[in-house]
């Protein structure tokens, strides 16, 4: 098992290097640091000195790949590629263009993100599974048909409208919870209710529909017939046999996104003013703070790959047929 995980982690390295190269090309080769400086300084007619000062301040005044002027190993390390790209591997994110320590910001903002994403995932999962099970129990009836139409309709509404609608209805019309903002500790709860609710409701359409197909696939298998032939109740058959098998794709799917929960929900967070990583990313995009975007790309890839590895491992835990090879 541990050997397997080590191997998978080693496999992850070339992928991360690839990610790094892509971001490096996007951020430094397509547009030169000069372009970036001009963009940041805003004016079209900025002087070359201003550009150079900005570059020096932010550490962009080095050559891209090879520093001819430096000696020895510094030839390679005193470059933008090493300083800005390779250092990410040590989770050294550097400082943002506005001068803040990105690593510190991330460690601070990760928790509010998680405080929304985790409840959304758990509550959503339980609601979706129960609803899908109910549909399956009443399969080939009008409840089934009506639910599918409802789910498709819910899927067809953009997430933005769930947020706007939730904010308007619950926050503004009924004044149940604050519309936006955040607090520390337990006081945060009242700020969390609305985003979590919106996240859950917004996910019901696609989630329940997906789980319904998982259940449908299982419910027609031979072993279900065997269970019925034993004289089991339909309800017990569903819970004990169908649910248990359908949970394999559901759980492994959840495990795959588990690490990405840290990344937060982009739109929700910025709408509700939650100081998480999602709103951090959006702010960075809007402020065109490339250092943060670069750091988040790297972090996202690492978490994605972590999710892949965890998925494979979780298969071995929930599915007796799969063994690591």
């Amino acid at each position: 098992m541990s050997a397997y995980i080590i191997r998978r982690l080693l496999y992850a390295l070339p992928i991360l290097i690839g990610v790094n190269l892509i971001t490096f090309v996007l951020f430094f080769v397509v547009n030169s640091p000069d372009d970036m400086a001009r963009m940041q300084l805003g004016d079209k007619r900025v002087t070359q000195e201003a550009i150079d000062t900005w570059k020096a301040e932010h550490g962009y005044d080095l050559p891209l790949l090879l520093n001819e002027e430096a000696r020895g190993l510094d030839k390679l390390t005193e470059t933008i590629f090493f300083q800005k790209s390779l250092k990410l591997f040590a989770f050294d994110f550097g400082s943002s263009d506005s001068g803040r320590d990105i690593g510190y910001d991330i460690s601070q903002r990760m928790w509010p993100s998680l405080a929304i994403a985790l409840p959304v995932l758990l509550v959503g999962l339980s609601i979706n599974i129960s609803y899908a099970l109910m549909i399956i129990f009443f399969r080939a009836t009008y409840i089934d048909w009506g639910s599918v139409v409802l789910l498709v309709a819910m899927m067809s509404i953009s997430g933005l409208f769930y947020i706007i609608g939730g904010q308007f209805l619950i926050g503004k019309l009924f004044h149940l919870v604050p519309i936006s903002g955040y607090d520390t500790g337990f006081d945060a709860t009242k700020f969390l209710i609305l985003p979590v609710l919106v996240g859950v409701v917004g996910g019901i359409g696609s989630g329940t529909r997906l789980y319904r197909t998982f259940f449908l696939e299982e419910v027609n298998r031979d072993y279900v017939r065997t269970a019925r032939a034993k004289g089991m109740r339909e309800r017990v058959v569903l819970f004990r046999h169908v649910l248990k098998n359908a949970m394999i794709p559901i759980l492994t799917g959840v495990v795959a996104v588990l690490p990405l929960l840290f990344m937060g929900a982009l739109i929700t967070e910025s709408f509700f003013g939650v100081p998480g990583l999602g709103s951090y990313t959006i702010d960075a995009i809007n402020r065109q703070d490339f250092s943060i975007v670069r750091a988040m790309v790297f972090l996202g890839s690492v978490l994605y790959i972590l999710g892949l590895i965890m998925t494979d491992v979780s298969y071995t835990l929930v599915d007796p047929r799969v063994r690591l090879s």
Partner: protein
Amino acid sequence: MPVILLTDALIFLLIAVAIGFGVYAARHEHLRGPWRSVGRSPVGIAALVVIAFYVAIGLLDSLHFHPRLDAPTPAEPVQQEAAPENGAPDPGPRYSTQVLSVLDLWLTPLRERDEKTFSAPFATHLFVKEAIEQPDGSTVRDYPRLTHGGAHLKNPANRTADIVLRTLLGLVKGLMAWTLILAALTWWLARRRGETFNDCARAIWSGRTQVPWRVGLITLALMTVLGFVAAELAVKYHILGTDKVGEDVFYQSLKSIRTGLVIGTLTTLVMLPAAIILGIMAGYFRGLTDDIIQYLYTTLSSIPGVLLIAAAILMLQVYMTNNAESFESLVERADLRLLFLCLILGITSWTGLCRLLRGESLKLRESDYVQAASALGVRHSTVIARHILPNVLHIVMITVVLDFSGLVLAEAVLSYVNIGVDPTMNSWGNMINSARLELAREPIVWWSLAAAFVFMFTLVLAANLFADVVRDAFDPRLRSLR
């Protein structure tokens, strides 16, 4: 003088591909059969009618041209375009640098009748108070009359009666148009089926036809009547209100259709070749080819999609501001950005299909008929073209249809984060983005949001329902589950 924007060209290419595929599908039973069952599903037909309306508007909006300048004096209200031609003593017909589409031409009344700022749907007065100069010289702070909306009414109190009247008129016109279509269709069907007109009409009406014409016609009636009523009213009112700069929201919503459709279709078009070729190659050849292709798509899909798009769009922005002079007009610039967005969305979304195709090809290459083909000495390229590709085509088709609605929704979110289409381009995302800033107003400015919601929801719902029908028809495994 016609102008062909890059996306226009690709749309025409897409249509050509679609027609070519249609001809191919019609000749192959395994494709024709499922499509026939799509055509026989009531939900499928209803969704298809709705989508057809959207597509028609989108296509009208894709025929671009430079309008001809009639008078030598360039008094044409040039909207967003700056730089009118100065003193070019060209004797021939002169063209504006403005780029318009056929739809713009058709909607000229909507396009040109701007108000000062916000006004509610069907309003006769502006939404905000202004200082109005009374005939007696004093000034009062009140809601001024709109310049265009309901301007024909002498007394704004008569508005309701006027609206009802015009609605009825639109209703009648719409029903008349629909009856014409109905008659034409029945006549055509009757000829094809060799029945009398009356028999055929009765068959349609009682739902005894194989293709559910009745459902299609009811949907069509709904859409036609809605269209005619809207047209009738839109001439005199801003039926969906106006936005902050006084532009008609109904016009914006209609113009946004093309953006949504382009994103939903061109993205898949640009990603298809890579996904199909690489996916099949990885699965069929295995070994090193497989490793490389798998590495490629794992790497790409490991980058969070939004961030990759953000990074790419930001870079494009930097490039565009630094090379502003190389774009002739704002429209062209916005168009390039749209195309680029499609490209980058394609890059983030081909991996899913590629993985699916790889898995399927892995299975197919072990199938008995591929083995039989290799025993017969058939070359790899032929095996792929003849045995693998036709047997994965249904997956491609299901993916294309399924992806469409997701992409339309994605556009809204991306535009909201400012990494979507150009801010000057009409899109539902931009409409929502600009409207949400007004949400805090009291009373609330809701019409832009509502318009974007209704237009988007209708399209996405129709697309989702259609996708469901297509998937059921093409995926035998799912069909057996029903």
